[in-house]
């Protein structure tokens, strides 16, 4: 089974996207497998609203494990199973909290092994220097790294917010030649394009 990894800076909206995209594909009971940096593995089933309430963060660094959902996507006449994995958010600098550093190290390891990478960027925060989800070094490095592989797209998230279209224009300019899909994880906008992109690589 192929693994599609959702990565990006912290607070970019990765978890919101993972949950709402699963819901968009018709999954109502979300069975999420947690792989913690410590090596512990567990799983729990949520309703979509409970999942959003418990897993989407008001503050950065909410996600601290690899959180996977198995999704079935129609491909050709049948369907293909794929592991959608949400990850702990990245930062540009060395974080002071060792737990967060450990979670990030886990994300980085997963990036090397993923079959497909969806790189979330907070389009509304592209130019905001101080926001945790502002476009940063690590985004450029993810793009550079992922360029060497076939399945890689940037998802410009939070397109519902003011300033996001300016951010999107800037992303297009910064990353020519990359696939950039504008979405709103919150309002499930642009998901059809994401689905088509993922299907192409399964």
């Amino acid at each position, binding site marked *: 089974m192929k693994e599609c990894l959702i990565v990006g800076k912290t607070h970019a909206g990765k978890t919101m996207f993972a949950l709402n995209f699963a819901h968009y594909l018709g999954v109502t009971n979300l069975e999420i497998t947690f792989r913690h940096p410590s090596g512990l593995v567990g799983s729990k089933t949520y309703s979509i609203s409970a999942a959003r309430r418990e897993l989407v963060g008001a503050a950065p660094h909410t996600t601290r494990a690899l959180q996977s959902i198995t999704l079935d996507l129609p491909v050709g006449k049948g369907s293909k199973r794929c592991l959608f994995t949400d990850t702990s958010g990245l930062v540009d600098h060395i974080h002071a909290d060792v737990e967060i550093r450990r979670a990030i190290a886990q994300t*980085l390891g997963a990036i090397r092994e993923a079959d497909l990478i969806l790189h979330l960027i907070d389009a509304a925060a592209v130019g905001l220097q101080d926001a945790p989800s502002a476009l940063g070094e690590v985004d450029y490095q993810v793009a550079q790294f992922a360029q060497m592989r076939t399945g890689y797209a940037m998802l410009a998230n939070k397109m519902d917010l003011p300033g996001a279209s300016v951010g999107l224009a800037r992303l297009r300019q910064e990353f020519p030649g990359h696939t950039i899909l504008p979405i709103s994880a919150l309002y499930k906008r642009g998901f059809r394009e994401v689905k088509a992109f993922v299907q192409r690589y399964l």
Partner: protein
Amino acid sequence: MARRGERRPPVQVERISMLVEKGELAPPAALASFRQTGTPLAVSSTAGTDSPLEKALANLDRLVGLKEVKQLVHEIKAFIEIQQRRAQEGLATEPLTLHMIFKGNPGTGKTTVARILGCIFKELGVLSKGHLVEVERADLVGEYIGHTAQKTREQIRKALGGILFVDEAYSLARGGEKDFGKESIDCLVKAMEDHRDDLVLILAGYREEMDYFLQTNPGLRSRFPIRIDFPDYTLDELLEIAQIFLAERDYYLSVSAREELMRQLQVAHNLRHSGNARLVRNIIERAIRRQAVRLSGQKNLSRDQLMIIERVDLEGGAAA
């Protein structure tokens, strides 16, 4: 730029993750180091078992840009292999004439590709050693009668079993009939006949000059059936070359340094010094020295600070 084909052994992935966890490496630097290990895990995990031939081809494919060059090299390889298989089956075979013309500006990857071809030919059993001997007019042409033949033969002897790469080959035809360059050409042509089984000759140089050279020396044209064009690099390719060059040396560019580099490459592009990987290398080497100056004298430098090239390190361009 000869160094494009060279790569250091992969750094250990586990170690990189550990450094991130220990707080000694920032995530962007970790990703930059990952890139240094080349292809993603799925491929690199089999790297240990790769044959030298596969490695040579992987090195070729890893070069930035050069799409057509790569394709041609793969075609040549396939042709050699099929000819060998046909020979085994007793089928008629084409004689293998692998002498080549490389056309393109300096710094477009000609030498690097020639070196990789040497490895490939060795692995395919076409050449016994596969090494590359790079020469130019001064190495071949002498000052008095007989001197030229002696010098040229000396270089041919060194190149036996490998590739003799003549840079700016058209300069051999400079100076007209009386010039000793002509004698050198004759010598090279004779060597191609005498050592047809264990010597490959590559004549390289600027596109227009090479075209003129071949037009005015029609006898040479048929002896060099393979012609490869090396186009100038695009801006994006130059940036990628810079980033690979840096990653191989455990450096990376900050966002604003990247912008500054792009700006400088754009300026060079407008001035038509474009497509030149050597220019990129000069800019980067200078930035690395300037970063050292900027950091020297500072205490408590983090690993990240030691790796990052900032905008100020690039300002002032490649000039010394």
